[in-house]
Each structure stands twice: as structure tokens, then as C-alpha cells.
């Protein structure tokens, strides 16, 4: 027992060898547009959540094109799998709980819009009644950077190379972090519901879960992108690699990336791209 210490020497993090992921050429972005990351906290035992998700999809399906990126985070006790019909486990542990706890989410459904505070509150995350106005407000902002993703996927080995490029449209002095997650669409399972306008009550037996946060590339809170001054037009290109979990349907998976201010948590730009 008295020798039970594991002193870890640097490097503390495993640097993934991405030499087998050649970096592609990124096309120029001719018309930069502000994008929005909607982090939707939900759970299959949450009776109000189908209504919340419906609101999110209504926002996404408006004429914003690819400017709305959704990450559905299944966290808290309302996402716990239970024996029987609710055995599906859509949690990403510990990432979902860490975000839920870090942002002090009081209950589901809650959604954040680029982690900007809901007007008149100190909360990043609001109830559905605040969502539409917040989305419009964020999307009206001018972009400060572009963010692109190019994925290369080998279906034989399930190796996914995700390349990202950020380009600054103006000088920047913020401490920025980048976070990458893998999301999956079209997962079918049971969902509690108390709104017959969106499905059967009290259970929707074939509910289709979309944008589910399934895996990560960078840890819950991402990794440092820049710290200190960055000149206008400077760019950062990074490559990430992952072998997809056999439980995921690669055809329904997307890589979601976002850049945020490490001091304020506000997301500056987000992007998503299908695995293939």
C-alpha cells in the first residue's frame, strides 16, 4: 500500500498519431455567416422534452440553411436507462453530466444558444419560450471567424479523420478553445411525453432521437485553440482521428465542432459535417 502512487510524467495527454490522415485542401469560404450551436439538454424520461425538441427542430428547419447546429445532450437522472422499455442509453459519460453540472442546468428541457445569456437572466440556458428570439438574436450577429470540417471515413476499418479549419475574420485576443463531438441521428427508442401534439402519451414507442451527442474528440471542454493575439486572416488547421464505435451507425453520424471563449464560455462559431 505504501507504494500505491502513480506519479505521471509529461506528456499528460496522448497525442494521437494522425500521420495516416492527410490534410485535404479546404475550399475558400466566400460568404462567411454566423452559425449557432444549440445545446439541447434532454432525456428519454423527461415528459416535456419531445415538445422541447420539436421547438428546436422548428428553429433548425427555418430558412437558416446550415447555420443551425444541434447537439442533443442526454444527461441527469431523466436520461438514466431503466430495465424494460427505457433501457436505451444515450448518455455520453461523463461529458454530458459535466456540461449539465458546469452550466447548473436546473431541469430539462433546456437549451443554450452559443452559450449566450438569456436576456434578463444570468443563465446560459433557457426554457423553450425563450429559444426562438435568442436564435434570431445570435444569428443576426456578424461572424468573427469561419469554421470548416472535412471528414474522411474508411468504412472497412471505421477510421474517421476529421479535419477542421478556422480562419479569423478580424484580429482576436480571446483565449479560445475548440471542442469536437460526434453526434448520431435516427436512433429509435421509447420517450416519455405529455403533449399529444408531438406524439402519443404517456410514451412514444418509436421516438426518433436526433443529434445525440455520442462521442468526443477533445474532452468535455475541448482543447486550447489560441491564446493571446491572433492576426486577421490567420488560420488554424487541426486533424483528429477516431475509430468509430461499432454501436454507431456511421451513415447517421456527424462531426460537430465549435470554438468558444474559454473565459466567458460563449461560442463564437460552430459547424457540423456528416461522417460520409
Amino acid at each position, binding site marked *: *500500500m505504501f507504494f*500505491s*502512487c502513480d*506519479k505521471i510524467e509529461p506528456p*499528460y495527454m*496522448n497525442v494521437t498519431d494522425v500521420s495516416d490522415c492527410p490534410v485535404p485542401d479546404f475550399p475558400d469560404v466566400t460568404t462567411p455567416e454566423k452559425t449557432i450551436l444549440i445545446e439541447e439538454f434532454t432525456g428519454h424520461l423527461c415528459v416535456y422534452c419531445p415538445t422541447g425538441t420539436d421547438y428546436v427542430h422548428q428553429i433548425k428547419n427555418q430558412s437558416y440553411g446550415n447555420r443551425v447546429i444541434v447537439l442533443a445532450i442526454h444527461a441527469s437522472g431523466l436520461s438514466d436507462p431503466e430495465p424494460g422499455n427505457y433501457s436505451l442509453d444515450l448518455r455520453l459519460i461523463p461529458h454530458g453530466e459535466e456540461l449539465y453540472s458546469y452550466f447548473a442546468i436546473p431541469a430539462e428541457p433546456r437549451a443554450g444558444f452559443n452559450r449566450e445569456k438569456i436576456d434578463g437572466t444570468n443563465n446560459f440556458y433557457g426554457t423553450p419560450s425563450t429559444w426562438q428570439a435568442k436564435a434570431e438574436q445570435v444569428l443576426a450577429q456578424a461572424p468573427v471567424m469561419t469554421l470548416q470540417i472535412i471528414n474522411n471515413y474508411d468504412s472497412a476499418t471505421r477510421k474517421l479523420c476529421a479535419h477542421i479549419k478556422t480562419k479569423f475574420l478580424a484580429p482576436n485576443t480571446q483565449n479560445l478553445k475548440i471542442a469536437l463531438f460526434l453526434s448520431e441521428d435516427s436512433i429509435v427508442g421509447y420517450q416519455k411525453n405529455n403533449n399529444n401534439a408531438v406524439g402519443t402519451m404517456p410514451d412514444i414507442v418509436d421516438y426518433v432521437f436526433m443529434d445525440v451527442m455520442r462521442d468526443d474528440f477533445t474532452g468535455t471542454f475541448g482543447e486550447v485553440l489560441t491564446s493571446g493575439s491572433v492576426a486577421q486572416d490567420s488560420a488554424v488547421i487541426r486533424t483528429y482521428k477516431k475509430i468509430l464505435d461499432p454501436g454507431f451507425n456511421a451513415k447517421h453520424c456527424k462531426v460537430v465542432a465549435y470554438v468558444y471563449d474559454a473565459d466567458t464560455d460563449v461560442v463564437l462559431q460552430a459547424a457540423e459535417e456528416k461522417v460520409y
Partner: protein
Amino acid sequence: MNHKHTFFFAIIICFIFSIGQGHAQGLEKLLRNSQVSGNFQFDGMYYNKDSLIGAPDVPQKVLMNAFANINYTNGPFSAGFRFENYLYALQGFDPRYKGIGIPYRYASFEKDKFTITIGNSYDQFGSGLVYRAWQDASLGYDNSLDGINIKVNPWKGITLKGVWGQQRFYFDKGPGIVRGGDAEFVINDMFKKLNDKPLRVSIGGSFVSKYQDADDPVFNLPKNVAAYGGRGSISYKGFMINGEYAHKINDPSTVNNRIYKSGNATLLQLTYAQKGLGLYLAAIRTDNMSFKSDRDAEGNDLNINYIPSLAKQTTYSLPSIYTYGTQPNGEFGMQAQGIYTFKKKSVLGGKYGTNISLTYSRYNAINKKQVDDDTPIDSTGTLGYKSDYFKIGKEAYYENFNFEFSKKFNKTFKLIVDYFYIMYNAKVIEGHEQPNIHSHTVVVDMTFNINEKHSLRTELQHMYAKQGEGSWAYAMVEYTIAPKWFFSVSDMYNYGNSISEKRLHYYSVATAFAIGSTRISLNYGRQRAGIFCVGGVCRYVPAANGLTLSISSSF
């Protein structure tokens, strides 16, 4: 049959076997020496939705927490268990307290200077900086260790302890294994010549290691993390000084944002006491000292150690709004307290004496600097930061100045007057983005003993604050008919809230009835959202409106 039931089955078999093997005299002796004791507590609440105070609609309408401890002792042998029932847990308690079970059970015997406990145990090494297993039902806190606990006194004045097990995690166990040992030497007790000397010295040391498997594709994680510490205490007549230092090796965790810096904590306490006078001076510095048996745990889950709080605690409602919660990632705290009792029959002491006390406590951040020019402080996967041990961080977390005057004027009237100044950094303590709160509170607590059975107590409190929720007023009247009845009415009024819709009354009406050791109480009213802390450990209490029934009993 799961392991919990196997454990009890084995105890019952041993019990029956011992009876079967014995004769009538043995059985009589066994029964004569047997003692069974226990206690029961039930708290149930019917919730009303109250959107004004932010009390949510509770789908189950009524929630409850209940537990019962049953203990059996027979000479050197003891065994017991605690039954717990949360269907579902009261608002403000972690929802993972869900269901019915026996998460705490133990058997223990003393033999040949050894005390051996199997099952769950509570214990503490020194002041708890490296190990403390404890329980507080009001906090929903229980980190008992399920395993073995051995204590031995090989020589007078020497106490050796060893623990090995897994921590309780709601109705389950944490994933990590905790192993530890402690040795304490009371020098004066060890040597007969020193037994009666006024100078008393003791020293001690602890070592605790946790093991948790690690299979992380990104982080190189330590599977074994150790913490160790040393302590000493010297007392001479009315003086006593004691200190403890603890160190923890790299322990990247969710709490510290997965940094690899080692941690440390220092606690120093100085006391002086003589008749009528007590002085206390203490300081604590903690640096990255969260120590949990699961690196992914958060909040109060699976703490192996305990960081003592030096902030003044009070039971009065208004100053309790702003109570300090310890910050294991780093804090520098101190407390200075003086208590003086004016002698009976002196000018200021009067017939029954007069007590006054002054207490000042303050907490600041520790000094943190970047490990290099390119790495922001607390960056994941780095050493996190550098800290100058003797430099105090600029950010103030908490400050409390308290003056208390307490006097019994005659057989029927007692008066306590308190003043509190509290500075509260809500951003650090509660995670709310808001300016520091500066509050001034005056409390007048009067007790009128009408006769031997009837007494009336009132509390009048006023808090002045510009920040946070602004100013409050509070009044309470309590009428007791000893030994059975108790009635109270109170109201907390947030009249100074800057948002006019939030200038609300938090009223409460309560009654209680006692029969022997059984007490039944009913309370109807509103509960303000906030944090509730015991010894620096806190839980969030949401706003609530409803009827609470509590029953407690012991035998």
C-alpha cells in the same frame, strides 16, 4: 441472494448457533447482556406549485426521506444497520437517492486491544484532511467505507488504524478502492513519568491511497493516487497549538479540470482558555485538495477527505442565507474568535453572568500563476498552475464579522443580540455570475420563561444589503408548553429585492408534539431557494411551498 443479505444471514446464523450451543444459563447471560437501540426519522412534504418563489410542480406531489438505525450490542460485540427509504427523495436531495435499501450495515468486536469492524464504517484520520468517512442526513451526505476497519492500541498512548474498502455511492458503491492507515502517539500517555506533566504532546501521521481503473484514450491517468499527512499537538495549561499538513500526488479529476498538479493543505489552530475567557485563532490553506475515490465524481460525491471550514456558522435564518462552502480547488481562510464571560454578581455580569463574543473569519483565493506563457491557468492536461505558498490570492471569497451579546437578566428573561457583517462571493460559492454581496444583519433573540412549563421565544432579524436579493426582515414567535407542545409562526420578508415582483413573504407555521423520545411536527409554509451548509459542506435547497410532516423517535 445478494451480498448484503448474505451478510445478515451469516450474523443471524451465528446468533442462532451460539444459542443452540449454549445451555440455559448461557442463553440467559446472552439475553441479559444484549442491548438493542435505534432511532427513526421520517420527513415527508406535500408540495404546492408556487411560481412566485420558483417552486416547481412536483409530479409525485408528496416526497419523503426516511431512515432507521438499529444497533445491537452484547459486551464487546456490536452490529447494526440503517434502513433508508426515498420514494422519492425530498426536493433538494440528490435524485439518485431513490428507492429502499440497507446501504449501511456493520458488525464489530473488541478483542485483545483490537477493534475490528466489517461492513460500513465511519472514521477520521486527524482533522480529516486525508481521510474522513462521515454522514449527515440533513445534507444527504454519506461516504461510509464498506470494507474493513481495524483499530489497535498496542501500547498505552498509541493508536493504529487501518481501513480498506469502497465508498458508499447512494444505493451503490463508488468505483474506486480506498486503502489507508493512521498512527497516533500521545507522548504523555506512552511514558508513565510524563502522565501528569502539564506539557502534553501528541503526534500522528496518515497515508491513504485510492485505486481506480483507467482506460482513457486521451489522458494518461494515475490509477493509484496517494495522500499523506502529518500532525502534531502541544498543550500547556490553557494553551494549545495544533497543526496538520497533508499532501496529495497528481490526481487529475473533473473537479480540478483534469490538471496534474499535486495538492496540499495546511491547518493551524491556536487556542487559549481560562475561566471566563476563550481565544481561538486558526488558518487553513488548501491547494487542489479535492480527493475523491472516483475521478469523475462531482459535488459532494465520494469525498475521501474533508476540508474543515473556519467560517462562522449560525442557526439564525437571515445570516444563514450567506453561508460559506469550502473550495477544495484552493482557498486561504482564517478565523479569530474571542469569548468573554463577565463574572456573576459583577457590574456587567449581573446575577447570572454575561457572555460576549467577537468572531472574524475570512476566505480568499490562493495565488495562481500560469505554468508558462502559452498555457492558461487550469488548462486540462497540464500542471494547471503554479502557486506561491505564502501569497494570498486577490479574490475574496467570504468575510464574516460577528459580535454576540448574551445575557440572562432574571429567571424569566434571556436576551441574545447578534450583529453580522458578511461579504459573500456568490460567483465562487454558488456559481452565479453576480457582484459580491455585502450584508449587515442584526438579530434580537428573546426568551421569556413564563413559568416552569410555558415559555415564549421571539427572534427579530433584519438584514441590510444592496446586492443579491437585497434587504430582508424576519420575525418569529415560538411558544413551548414543556414537555409536549411547541408552536411557532415566522415570516421572512424580502422587502428590499430590486425586482418588485420578488418582494415576497416566506411565511411558516409549525407545531410539534412530543411523547417521550418521539416527536411529531407539522410545518406549513414557503422555503427560500438557497444553499444549506454544515461544516463547509453544502447542498442546494430549491424553493418550496407545502406541508411538511416529520416524525422522529429513538429507543
